[in-house]
Protein backbone atom coordinates (compact mmCIF):
# COMPACT_ATOMS: atom_id res chain seq x y z
CA UNK A 1 0.00 0.00 0.00
CA UNK A 2 2.68 2.62 0.70
CA UNK A 3 3.48 3.42 -2.98
CA UNK A 4 -0.17 4.26 -3.76
CA UNK A 5 -0.54 6.19 -0.51
CA UNK A 6 2.69 8.02 -1.31
CA UNK A 7 1.25 9.09 -4.67
CA UNK A 8 -2.01 10.16 -3.04
CA UNK A 9 -0.18 12.22 -0.41
CA UNK A 10 2.02 13.81 -3.07
CA UNK A 11 -1.11 14.83 -4.98
CA UNK A 12 -2.57 16.39 -1.85
CA UNK A 13 0.72 18.15 -1.09
CA UNK A 14 0.90 19.41 -4.69
CA UNK A 15 -2.58 20.96 -4.32
CA UNK A 16 -1.32 22.97 -1.36
CA UNK A 17 2.05 23.95 -2.80
CA UNK A 18 0.70 25.03 -6.17
CA UNK A 19 -2.25 26.96 -4.77
CA UNK A 20 0.03 28.52 -2.15
CA UNK A 21 2.35 29.56 -4.97
CA UNK A 22 -0.50 31.24 -6.83
CA UNK A 23 -1.72 33.03 -3.73
CA UNK A 24 1.77 34.25 -2.89
CA UNK A 25 1.90 35.99 -6.27
CA UNK A 26 -0.49 38.58 -4.81
CA UNK A 27 1.99 39.63 -2.12
CA UNK A 28 2.59 43.38 -2.51
CA UNK A 29 -0.09 43.74 -5.18
CA UNK A 30 -3.36 43.27 -3.25
CA UNK A 31 -6.32 45.66 -3.34
CA UNK A 32 -5.67 46.74 0.25
CA UNK A 33 -2.97 46.36 2.82
CA UNK A 34 -5.07 43.98 4.95
CA UNK A 35 -5.18 41.57 1.98
CA UNK A 36 -1.46 42.06 1.38
CA UNK A 37 -1.18 40.42 4.81
CA UNK A 38 -4.05 37.94 4.63
CA UNK A 39 -3.20 36.28 1.30
CA UNK A 40 0.47 35.56 2.09
CA UNK A 41 -0.72 34.37 5.50
CA UNK A 42 -3.04 31.81 3.89
CA UNK A 43 -0.29 30.90 1.40
CA UNK A 44 2.04 30.31 4.34
CA UNK A 45 -0.45 27.89 5.91
CA UNK A 46 -0.85 26.03 2.61
CA UNK A 47 2.89 25.71 2.15
CA UNK A 48 3.20 24.53 5.73
CA UNK A 49 0.60 21.83 5.07
CA UNK A 50 2.41 20.84 1.85
CA UNK A 51 5.66 20.47 3.79
CA UNK A 52 4.08 18.12 6.32
CA UNK A 53 2.56 16.00 3.58
CA UNK A 54 5.70 15.86 1.39
CA UNK A 55 7.87 14.96 4.34
CA UNK A 56 5.56 12.14 5.36
CA UNK A 57 5.23 10.91 1.76
CA UNK A 58 9.03 10.86 1.49
CA UNK A 59 9.34 8.87 4.71
CA UNK A 60 6.76 6.31 3.57
CA UNK A 61 8.43 6.02 0.19
CA UNK A 62 11.82 5.39 1.81
CA UNK A 63 13.76 6.43 -1.30
CA UNK A 64 15.53 9.35 0.36
CA UNK A 65 13.38 12.11 -1.15
CA UNK A 66 12.77 14.95 1.31
CA UNK A 67 10.22 17.76 1.06
CA UNK A 68 12.38 19.78 -1.31
CA UNK A 69 13.20 16.86 -3.59
CA UNK A 70 9.47 16.26 -3.94
CA UNK A 71 8.46 19.91 -4.24
CA UNK A 72 11.12 21.00 -6.72
CA UNK A 73 12.60 17.90 -8.30
CA UNK A 74 9.90 16.51 -10.55
CA UNK A 75 8.86 17.09 -14.14
CA UNK A 76 5.48 18.62 -14.93
CA UNK A 77 3.82 15.29 -15.71
CA UNK A 78 4.70 14.00 -12.24
CA UNK A 79 2.83 16.80 -10.42
CA UNK A 80 -0.58 15.52 -9.35
CA UNK A 81 -2.41 18.68 -8.20
CA UNK A 82 -6.02 19.46 -9.07
CA UNK A 83 -6.25 21.80 -12.05
CA UNK A 84 -8.14 24.45 -10.08
CA UNK A 85 -5.00 25.03 -8.00
CA UNK A 86 -2.78 25.94 -10.94
CA UNK A 87 -5.13 28.31 -12.81
CA UNK A 88 -3.73 31.83 -13.06
CA UNK A 89 -5.07 34.15 -10.34
CA UNK A 90 -7.31 36.30 -12.51
CA UNK A 91 -8.84 39.20 -10.58
CA UNK A 92 -9.48 39.35 -6.85
CA UNK A 93 -12.99 37.88 -7.26
CA UNK A 94 -11.57 34.87 -9.11
CA UNK A 95 -8.82 34.40 -6.51
CA UNK A 96 -11.21 34.59 -3.58
CA UNK A 97 -13.86 32.31 -5.08
CA UNK A 98 -11.24 29.68 -5.93
CA UNK A 99 -9.82 29.94 -2.43
CA UNK A 100 -13.29 29.64 -0.92
CA UNK A 101 -14.04 26.50 -2.97
CA UNK A 102 -10.74 24.96 -1.95
CA UNK A 103 -10.94 25.93 1.73
CA UNK A 104 -14.52 24.72 2.01
CA UNK A 105 -13.50 21.39 0.48
CA UNK A 106 -10.35 21.05 2.57
CA UNK A 107 -12.17 21.87 5.79
CA UNK A 108 -14.50 18.93 5.15
CA UNK A 109 -11.58 16.78 4.05
CA UNK A 110 -9.40 17.50 7.07
CA UNK A 111 -12.33 16.98 9.44
CA UNK A 112 -12.52 13.41 8.15
CA UNK A 113 -8.74 12.92 8.26
CA UNK A 114 -8.73 13.89 11.93
CA UNK A 115 -10.12 10.42 12.63
CA UNK A 116 -7.79 8.71 10.14
CA UNK A 117 -6.34 5.33 11.10
CA UNK A 118 -2.95 6.86 10.28
CA UNK A 119 -1.73 8.79 13.33
CA UNK A 120 0.64 11.07 11.40
CA UNK A 121 -2.08 12.17 9.00
CA UNK A 122 -4.51 12.65 11.88
CA UNK A 123 -1.96 14.96 13.52
CA UNK A 124 -1.45 16.95 10.29
CA UNK A 125 -5.24 17.21 9.98
CA UNK A 126 -5.69 18.45 13.56
CA UNK A 127 -3.70 21.57 12.73
CA UNK A 128 -4.87 21.93 9.14
CA UNK A 129 -8.56 21.77 10.01
CA UNK A 130 -8.26 24.91 12.13
CA UNK A 131 -6.36 26.71 9.41
CA UNK A 132 -8.78 25.73 6.66
CA UNK A 133 -11.71 26.87 8.83
CA UNK A 134 -10.14 30.29 9.08
CA UNK A 135 -9.39 30.39 5.32
CA UNK A 136 -12.93 29.35 4.52
CA UNK A 137 -14.40 32.07 6.70
CA UNK A 138 -12.13 34.78 5.34
CA UNK A 139 -12.80 33.87 1.71
CA UNK A 140 -16.55 33.26 2.16
CA UNK A 141 -16.84 36.76 3.61
CA UNK A 142 -15.20 38.16 0.48
CA UNK A 143 -17.47 36.13 -1.81
CA UNK A 144 -20.45 37.64 0.03
CA UNK A 145 -19.02 41.17 0.06
CA UNK A 146 -18.23 41.11 -3.64
CA UNK A 147 -21.38 39.27 -4.71
CA UNK A 148 -23.54 41.72 -2.77
CA UNK A 149 -21.35 44.83 -3.16
CA UNK A 150 -21.46 47.02 -6.27
CA UNK A 151 -22.70 46.19 -9.77
CA UNK A 152 -19.11 45.80 -10.90
CA UNK A 153 -18.11 43.48 -8.07
CA UNK A 154 -21.25 41.36 -8.62
CA UNK A 155 -20.48 41.09 -12.33
CA UNK A 156 -16.87 40.08 -11.61
CA UNK A 157 -18.01 37.50 -9.08
CA UNK A 158 -20.50 36.06 -11.58
CA UNK A 159 -17.70 35.80 -14.14
CA UNK A 160 -15.55 33.99 -11.60
CA UNK A 161 -18.38 31.53 -10.93
CA UNK A 162 -18.60 30.80 -14.66
CA UNK A 163 -14.84 30.51 -15.15
CA UNK A 164 -14.37 28.16 -12.20
CA UNK A 165 -17.43 25.99 -12.80
CA UNK A 166 -15.60 23.44 -15.00
CA UNK A 167 -12.85 22.99 -12.38
CA UNK A 168 -14.83 22.51 -9.15
CA UNK A 169 -15.96 19.01 -10.06
CA UNK A 170 -12.45 17.58 -9.89
CA UNK A 171 -12.49 17.76 -6.08
CA UNK A 172 -14.91 14.84 -6.07
CA UNK A 173 -13.41 12.55 -8.65
CA UNK A 174 -11.82 9.64 -6.84
CA UNK A 175 -8.02 9.54 -7.03
CA UNK A 176 -7.20 5.98 -8.18
CA UNK A 177 -4.01 6.11 -6.12
CA UNK A 178 -6.04 6.83 -2.99
CA UNK A 179 -8.43 3.86 -3.28
CA UNK A 180 -6.44 1.61 -0.97
CA UNK A 181 -6.01 4.37 1.58
CA UNK A 182 -9.75 5.12 1.48
CA UNK A 183 -10.56 1.43 2.03
CA UNK A 184 -8.14 1.32 4.97
CA UNK A 185 -9.67 4.38 6.61
CA UNK A 186 -6.51 6.42 6.07
CA UNK A 187 -8.04 9.02 3.74
CA UNK A 188 -11.69 9.97 3.22
CA UNK A 189 -13.63 9.27 0.06
CA UNK A 190 -13.87 12.68 -1.56
CA UNK A 191 -17.10 11.85 -3.38
CA UNK A 192 -18.81 11.55 -0.01
CA UNK A 193 -17.93 15.18 0.74
CA UNK A 194 -19.66 16.59 -2.32
CA UNK A 195 -23.08 17.04 -0.75
CA UNK A 196 -21.77 18.95 2.25
CA UNK A 197 -19.53 21.09 0.02
CA UNK A 198 -22.43 21.99 -2.26
CA UNK A 199 -24.56 22.91 0.74
CA UNK A 200 -21.81 25.19 2.02
CA UNK A 201 -21.38 26.86 -1.38
CA UNK A 202 -25.14 27.29 -1.74
CA UNK A 203 -25.45 28.91 1.65
CA UNK A 204 -22.69 31.41 0.86
CA UNK A 205 -24.10 32.08 -2.61
CA UNK A 206 -27.51 32.88 -1.14
CA UNK A 207 -25.92 35.44 1.18
CA UNK A 208 -23.86 36.75 -1.75
CA UNK A 209 -26.97 37.00 -3.97
CA UNK A 210 -25.19 34.86 -6.54
CA UNK A 211 -26.88 32.31 -8.80
CA UNK A 212 -25.53 28.80 -8.22
CA UNK A 213 -22.99 27.60 -10.81
CA UNK A 214 -24.48 25.80 -13.78
CA UNK A 215 -23.63 22.15 -14.13
CA UNK A 216 -20.95 22.01 -16.82
CA UNK A 217 -18.58 19.41 -18.18
CA UNK A 218 -15.88 18.90 -15.55
CA UNK A 219 -12.24 19.40 -16.52
CA UNK A 220 -10.06 16.74 -14.99
CA UNK A 221 -6.67 15.16 -15.32
CA UNK A 222 -4.61 16.89 -12.65
CA UNK A 223 -4.27 13.71 -10.61
CA UNK A 224 -2.83 12.01 -13.71
CA UNK A 225 -0.39 14.84 -14.41
CA UNK A 226 -2.43 16.25 -17.28
CA UNK A 227 -2.10 19.99 -16.69
CA UNK A 228 -3.10 23.30 -18.25
CA UNK A 229 -0.52 25.33 -20.19
CA UNK A 230 -0.17 27.62 -17.16
CA UNK A 231 1.52 24.86 -15.16
CA UNK A 232 4.85 24.79 -16.99
CA UNK A 233 5.34 28.50 -16.47
CA UNK A 234 4.51 28.18 -12.79
CA UNK A 235 7.07 25.39 -12.44
CA UNK A 236 9.68 27.40 -14.34
CA UNK A 237 9.53 29.92 -11.49
CA UNK A 238 9.06 27.45 -8.68
CA UNK A 239 12.01 25.28 -9.77
CA UNK A 240 14.30 28.05 -11.02
CA UNK A 241 16.87 27.83 -8.23
CA UNK A 242 16.90 24.05 -7.96
CA UNK A 243 17.31 23.71 -11.74
CA UNK A 244 19.98 26.43 -12.00
CA UNK A 245 21.97 25.21 -9.00
CA UNK A 246 21.27 21.50 -8.55
CA UNK A 247 22.28 19.57 -5.43
CA UNK A 248 23.17 22.51 -3.24
CA UNK A 249 22.21 23.40 0.31
CA UNK A 250 20.35 26.65 0.92
Amino acid at each position, binding site marked *: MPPALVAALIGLADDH*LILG*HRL*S*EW*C*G*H*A*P*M*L*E*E*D*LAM*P*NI*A*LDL*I*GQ*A*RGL*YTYAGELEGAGRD*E*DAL*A*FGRLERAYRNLLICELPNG*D*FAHTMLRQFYFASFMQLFWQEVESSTDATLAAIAAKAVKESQYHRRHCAEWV*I*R*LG*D*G*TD*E*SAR*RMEEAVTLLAPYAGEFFIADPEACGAVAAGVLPETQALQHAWQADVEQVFVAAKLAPPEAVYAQKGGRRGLHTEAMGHLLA*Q*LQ*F*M*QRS*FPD*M*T*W
Partner: protein
Amino acid sequence: MYSQGLIGSGDQTTETPKFLAAFQARIDADEKIEPNDPMPAAYRKTLIRQIGQHAHSEIIGMLPEGNWITRAPTLRRKAALLAKVQDEGGHGLYLYSAAETLGVSRKQMTEELVSGRAKYSSIFNYPTQTWADIGAIGWLVDGAAIMNQVPLCRCSYGPYARAMIRVCKEESFHQRQGYEIMLKLAEGSPAQKEMAQDALNRWWWPSLMMFGPPDGASEHSDQSTRWKIKRFTNDELRQKFVDATVPQAQRLGLSLPDPALAWNEAGGRYDYGEIDWDEFWAVVKGHGPLNKARVAARKKAWEDGAWVREAALAHAKKRAARQSVAIAAE
Protein backbone atom coordinates in the same frame (compact mmCIF):
# COMPACT_ATOMS: atom_id res chain seq x y z
CA MET B 1 -8.11 70.03 11.32
CA TYR B 2 -4.57 68.97 10.59
CA SER B 3 -5.59 66.47 8.00
CA GLN B 4 -5.47 68.90 5.10
CA GLY B 5 -2.35 70.05 3.39
CA LEU B 6 -0.02 69.00 6.13
CA ILE B 7 2.25 67.09 3.84
CA GLY B 8 4.32 69.68 2.07
CA SER B 9 2.47 72.63 3.57
CA GLY B 10 4.20 75.74 4.87
CA ASP B 11 5.65 75.76 8.36
CA GLN B 12 4.25 78.99 9.73
CA THR B 13 3.09 78.56 13.31
CA THR B 14 0.79 80.62 15.43
CA GLU B 15 1.99 79.14 18.70
CA THR B 16 3.06 81.51 21.46
CA PRO B 17 6.56 81.29 22.96
CA LYS B 18 4.91 80.24 26.23
CA PHE B 19 3.17 77.29 24.55
CA LEU B 20 6.37 76.21 22.79
CA ALA B 21 8.38 76.45 26.02
CA ALA B 22 5.82 74.40 27.93
CA PHE B 23 5.92 71.74 25.21
CA GLN B 24 9.72 71.66 25.22
CA ALA B 25 9.66 71.29 29.00
CA ARG B 26 7.52 68.14 28.66
CA ILE B 27 9.97 66.76 26.09
CA ASP B 28 12.94 67.61 28.31
CA ALA B 29 11.26 65.80 31.22
CA ASP B 30 11.03 62.69 28.94
CA GLU B 31 7.25 62.72 29.00
CA LYS B 32 5.56 60.91 26.11
CA ILE B 33 3.39 63.06 23.86
CA GLU B 34 0.04 61.39 23.15
CA PRO B 35 -2.40 61.98 20.26
CA ASN B 36 -4.77 64.32 22.10
CA ASP B 37 -2.05 66.37 23.75
CA PRO B 38 -1.40 69.90 22.53
CA MET B 39 1.66 69.97 20.26
CA PRO B 40 3.28 72.49 17.92
CA ALA B 41 2.07 72.20 14.32
CA ALA B 42 5.63 71.68 13.14
CA TYR B 43 6.11 68.75 15.56
CA ARG B 44 2.97 67.16 14.17
CA LYS B 45 4.07 67.82 10.60
CA THR B 46 7.54 66.43 11.16
CA LEU B 47 6.11 63.24 12.65
CA ILE B 48 3.55 62.80 9.90
CA ARG B 49 6.33 63.13 7.33
CA GLN B 50 8.68 60.78 9.14
CA ILE B 51 6.14 58.09 10.10
CA GLY B 52 4.55 58.30 6.66
CA GLN B 53 7.90 57.82 4.93
CA HIS B 54 8.69 54.99 7.29
CA ALA B 55 5.36 53.28 6.51
CA HIS B 56 5.86 53.78 2.76
CA SER B 57 9.32 52.22 3.04
CA GLU B 58 7.83 49.10 4.60
CA ILE B 59 5.23 48.85 1.85
CA ILE B 60 7.60 49.50 -1.07
CA GLY B 61 10.07 47.17 0.67
CA MET B 62 7.63 44.28 0.13
CA LEU B 63 8.31 44.47 -3.62
CA PRO B 64 12.04 43.67 -3.94
CA GLU B 65 11.73 40.76 -1.51
CA GLY B 66 8.37 39.65 -2.85
CA ASN B 67 10.21 39.29 -6.15
CA TRP B 68 11.77 36.07 -4.81
CA ILE B 69 8.86 34.39 -3.01
CA THR B 70 7.86 32.27 -6.00
CA ARG B 71 11.52 31.38 -6.70
CA ALA B 72 12.86 30.68 -3.19
CA PRO B 73 15.24 27.70 -3.31
CA THR B 74 13.61 25.52 -0.61
CA LEU B 75 10.22 25.29 1.08
CA ARG B 76 11.74 26.38 4.38
CA ARG B 77 13.20 29.51 2.76
CA LYS B 78 9.95 30.16 0.93
CA ALA B 79 7.92 30.00 4.15
CA ALA B 80 10.39 32.25 5.98
CA LEU B 81 10.41 34.80 3.16
CA LEU B 82 6.61 34.85 2.96
CA ALA B 83 6.44 35.42 6.70
CA LYS B 84 9.05 38.15 6.49
CA VAL B 85 7.38 40.07 3.69
CA GLN B 86 4.10 39.75 5.55
CA ASP B 87 5.80 41.22 8.64
CA GLU B 88 6.91 44.22 6.57
CA GLY B 89 3.32 44.77 5.45
CA GLY B 90 2.27 44.55 9.10
CA HIS B 91 4.84 47.20 10.02
CA GLY B 92 3.38 49.41 7.30
CA LEU B 93 -0.07 48.86 8.76
CA TYR B 94 0.77 49.91 12.28
CA LEU B 95 2.93 52.78 11.15
CA TYR B 96 0.05 54.11 9.04
CA SER B 97 -2.13 53.70 12.14
CA ALA B 98 0.41 55.64 14.23
CA ALA B 99 0.39 58.42 11.61
CA GLU B 100 -3.42 58.42 11.62
CA THR B 101 -3.36 59.42 15.31
CA LEU B 102 -1.88 62.69 14.06
CA GLY B 103 -4.85 63.44 11.84
CA VAL B 104 -3.81 62.18 8.42
CA SER B 105 -5.62 59.25 6.79
CA ARG B 106 -4.12 56.09 5.33
CA LYS B 107 -5.92 56.86 2.09
CA GLN B 108 -4.24 60.27 1.87
CA MET B 109 -0.84 58.77 2.58
CA THR B 110 -1.38 56.00 0.02
CA GLU B 111 -2.41 58.55 -2.59
CA GLU B 112 0.78 60.49 -1.85
CA LEU B 113 2.77 57.32 -2.40
CA VAL B 114 1.14 56.22 -5.64
CA SER B 115 1.31 59.75 -7.06
CA GLY B 116 5.10 59.55 -6.70
CA ARG B 117 5.24 62.58 -4.39
CA ALA B 118 5.97 60.72 -1.16
CA LYS B 119 9.48 59.68 -0.23
CA TYR B 120 10.51 56.25 1.02
CA SER B 121 13.80 54.56 1.73
CA SER B 122 15.85 54.79 -1.48
CA ILE B 123 17.40 51.38 -1.06
CA PHE B 124 14.23 49.74 -2.35
CA ASN B 125 14.82 51.34 -5.73
CA TYR B 126 17.58 48.81 -6.41
CA PRO B 127 16.71 45.44 -8.01
CA THR B 128 16.94 42.02 -6.36
CA GLN B 129 18.73 40.03 -9.03
CA THR B 130 19.74 36.87 -7.22
CA TRP B 131 18.67 34.78 -4.24
CA ALA B 132 21.69 36.15 -2.33
CA ASP B 133 20.08 39.58 -2.51
CA ILE B 134 17.42 38.28 -0.15
CA GLY B 135 20.16 37.37 2.31
CA ALA B 136 21.96 40.68 1.82
CA ILE B 137 18.77 42.69 2.32
CA GLY B 138 17.93 40.88 5.54
CA TRP B 139 21.44 41.20 6.88
CA LEU B 140 22.34 44.72 5.74
CA VAL B 141 19.12 46.58 5.05
CA ASP B 142 17.24 45.25 8.07
CA GLY B 143 20.46 45.62 10.06
CA ALA B 144 20.69 49.29 9.10
CA ALA B 145 16.99 49.72 9.81
CA ILE B 146 17.51 48.37 13.33
CA MET B 147 20.29 50.90 13.98
CA ASN B 148 17.91 53.65 12.91
CA GLN B 149 14.87 52.28 14.69
CA VAL B 150 16.06 51.11 18.09
CA PRO B 151 16.48 54.74 19.24
CA LEU B 152 12.96 55.43 17.94
CA CYS B 153 11.56 53.12 20.63
CA ARG B 154 12.38 56.03 22.96
CA CYS B 155 11.00 58.68 20.62
CA SER B 156 8.91 61.39 22.31
CA TYR B 157 5.72 60.55 20.40
CA GLY B 158 4.01 57.70 22.27
CA PRO B 159 2.24 55.83 19.45
CA TYR B 160 5.37 55.86 17.25
CA ALA B 161 7.63 54.74 20.10
CA ARG B 162 5.31 51.88 21.01
CA ALA B 163 4.92 50.74 17.38
CA MET B 164 8.69 50.66 17.05
CA ILE B 165 9.14 48.23 19.94
CA ARG B 166 7.38 45.46 18.08
CA VAL B 167 8.84 46.47 14.72
CA CYS B 168 12.38 46.28 16.14
CA LYS B 169 11.82 42.79 17.55
CA GLU B 170 10.70 41.55 14.17
CA GLU B 171 13.47 43.38 12.29
CA SER B 172 16.01 41.79 14.56
CA PHE B 173 14.65 38.37 13.65
CA HIS B 174 14.77 39.30 9.94
CA GLN B 175 18.35 40.47 10.27
CA ARG B 176 19.43 37.14 11.76
CA GLN B 177 17.47 35.29 9.11
CA GLY B 178 19.20 37.27 6.36
CA TYR B 179 22.58 36.63 7.89
CA GLU B 180 21.81 32.93 8.08
CA ILE B 181 21.00 32.91 4.34
CA MET B 182 24.40 34.54 3.70
CA LEU B 183 26.13 32.07 6.02
CA LYS B 184 24.72 29.10 4.10
CA LEU B 185 25.86 30.64 0.82
CA ALA B 186 29.29 31.48 2.17
CA GLU B 187 29.72 27.87 3.34
CA GLY B 188 28.36 26.50 0.08
CA SER B 189 29.67 25.84 -3.43
CA PRO B 190 31.92 28.33 -5.28
CA ALA B 191 28.85 29.48 -7.23
CA GLN B 192 26.98 30.17 -4.00
CA LYS B 193 29.90 32.02 -2.47
CA GLU B 194 30.29 34.12 -5.61
CA MET B 195 26.57 34.93 -5.49
CA ALA B 196 26.93 36.07 -1.87
CA GLN B 197 29.97 38.24 -2.60
CA ASP B 198 28.26 39.82 -5.60
CA ALA B 199 25.19 40.66 -3.51
CA LEU B 200 27.35 42.20 -0.80
CA ASN B 201 29.19 44.27 -3.42
CA ARG B 202 25.93 45.66 -4.75
CA TRP B 203 24.13 46.26 -1.43
CA TRP B 204 26.93 47.60 0.78
CA TRP B 205 27.05 51.20 -0.39
CA PRO B 206 23.28 51.68 -0.72
CA SER B 207 23.01 50.29 2.86
CA LEU B 208 25.40 52.98 4.13
CA MET B 209 23.31 55.56 2.27
CA MET B 210 20.23 54.44 4.22
CA PHE B 211 21.32 56.60 7.15
CA GLY B 212 20.79 59.69 5.04
CA PRO B 213 23.02 62.61 4.08
CA PRO B 214 26.09 63.42 6.16
CA ASP B 215 25.63 65.54 9.27
CA GLY B 216 25.38 69.16 8.33
CA ALA B 217 23.58 68.41 5.07
CA SER B 218 20.45 67.07 6.78
CA GLU B 219 17.85 69.81 7.04
CA HIS B 220 15.63 68.21 9.68
CA SER B 221 18.07 66.86 12.24
CA ASP B 222 18.52 69.72 14.71
CA GLN B 223 14.89 70.41 15.51
CA SER B 224 14.11 66.66 15.52
CA THR B 225 16.87 66.14 18.05
CA ARG B 226 15.52 68.86 20.36
CA TRP B 227 12.10 67.23 20.15
CA LYS B 228 13.60 63.81 20.86
CA ILE B 229 12.25 62.37 17.65
CA LYS B 230 15.82 61.73 16.62
CA ARG B 231 18.41 60.69 19.19
CA PHE B 232 21.55 60.19 17.12
CA THR B 233 22.90 61.90 14.03
CA ASN B 234 23.04 60.18 10.63
CA ASP B 235 26.80 59.82 10.80
CA GLU B 236 26.74 58.43 14.34
CA LEU B 237 24.27 55.74 13.31
CA ARG B 238 26.19 54.97 10.12
CA GLN B 239 29.37 54.50 12.14
CA LYS B 240 27.62 52.15 14.58
CA PHE B 241 26.38 50.12 11.62
CA VAL B 242 29.83 49.87 10.01
CA ASP B 243 31.41 48.86 13.32
CA ALA B 244 28.81 46.14 13.88
CA THR B 245 28.82 44.83 10.31
CA VAL B 246 32.52 44.55 9.45
CA PRO B 247 33.16 41.64 11.86
CA GLN B 248 30.02 39.91 10.55
CA ALA B 249 31.39 40.12 6.98
CA GLN B 250 34.71 38.75 8.20
CA ARG B 251 32.93 35.82 9.84
CA LEU B 252 31.31 35.08 6.47
CA GLY B 253 34.68 35.21 4.74
CA LEU B 254 33.37 37.90 2.39
CA SER B 255 35.11 41.15 1.62
CA LEU B 256 33.50 44.57 1.78
CA PRO B 257 33.80 46.54 -1.45
CA ASP B 258 35.70 49.43 0.12
CA PRO B 259 39.52 49.58 -0.23
CA ALA B 260 39.61 52.45 2.29
CA LEU B 261 38.00 50.38 5.03
CA ALA B 262 40.43 50.07 7.95
CA TRP B 263 40.42 49.70 11.72
CA ASN B 264 41.22 52.97 13.44
CA GLU B 265 42.95 51.98 16.66
CA ALA B 266 42.96 55.45 18.17
CA GLY B 267 39.30 56.08 17.40
CA GLY B 268 38.16 52.55 18.32
CA ARG B 269 36.17 52.36 15.08
CA TYR B 270 36.38 51.43 11.42
CA ASP B 271 37.19 54.20 8.96
CA TYR B 272 35.44 53.84 5.65
CA GLY B 273 35.69 55.36 2.20
CA GLU B 274 33.79 58.23 0.65
CA ILE B 275 30.13 57.53 -0.09
CA ASP B 276 28.97 58.44 -3.59
CA TRP B 277 26.54 61.19 -2.61
CA ASP B 278 25.80 61.98 -6.25
CA GLU B 279 24.32 58.50 -6.59
CA PHE B 280 22.41 58.97 -3.33
CA TRP B 281 20.82 62.23 -4.44
CA ALA B 282 20.09 60.88 -7.92
CA VAL B 283 18.14 57.96 -6.43
CA VAL B 284 16.37 60.22 -3.90
CA LYS B 285 15.31 62.46 -6.77
CA GLY B 286 13.75 59.56 -8.65
CA HIS B 287 16.56 58.38 -10.91
CA GLY B 288 17.38 55.05 -9.25
CA PRO B 289 17.10 51.87 -11.31
CA LEU B 290 13.56 51.11 -10.16
CA ASN B 291 11.96 54.26 -8.67
CA LYS B 292 9.37 54.42 -11.41
CA ALA B 293 8.69 50.69 -11.44
CA ARG B 294 8.18 50.55 -7.66
CA VAL B 295 5.67 53.38 -7.59
CA ALA B 296 3.99 52.04 -10.73
CA ALA B 297 3.54 48.62 -9.08
CA ARG B 298 1.85 50.14 -6.04
CA LYS B 299 -0.22 52.45 -8.24
CA LYS B 300 -1.41 49.49 -10.28
CA ALA B 301 -2.34 47.53 -7.13
CA TRP B 302 -4.19 50.56 -5.75
CA GLU B 303 -6.07 51.30 -8.97
CA ASP B 304 -6.81 47.67 -9.85
CA GLY B 305 -8.12 47.17 -6.32
CA ALA B 306 -10.41 50.22 -6.30
CA TRP B 307 -13.47 48.16 -7.24
CA VAL B 308 -12.79 45.76 -4.35
CA ARG B 309 -12.58 48.56 -1.79
CA GLU B 310 -15.71 50.18 -3.23
CA ALA B 311 -17.57 46.86 -3.05
CA ALA B 312 -16.50 46.28 0.57
CA LEU B 313 -17.79 49.73 1.49
CA ALA B 314 -21.04 49.30 -0.45
CA HIS B 315 -21.65 45.93 1.19
CA ALA B 316 -20.99 47.32 4.67
CA LYS B 317 -23.53 50.09 4.02
CA LYS B 318 -26.12 47.58 2.80
CA ARG B 319 -25.63 45.46 5.90
CA ALA B 320 -25.91 48.44 8.22
CA ALA B 321 -29.09 49.56 6.45
CA ARG B 322 -30.60 46.05 6.72
CA GLN B 323 -29.68 45.89 10.39
CA SER B 324 -31.34 49.23 11.17
CA VAL B 325 -34.46 48.12 9.30
CA ALA B 326 -34.49 44.92 11.34
CA ILE B 327 -34.05 46.81 14.59
CA ALA B 328 -36.82 49.24 13.65
CA ALA B 329 -39.15 46.30 12.94
CA GLU B 330 -38.59 44.75 16.37
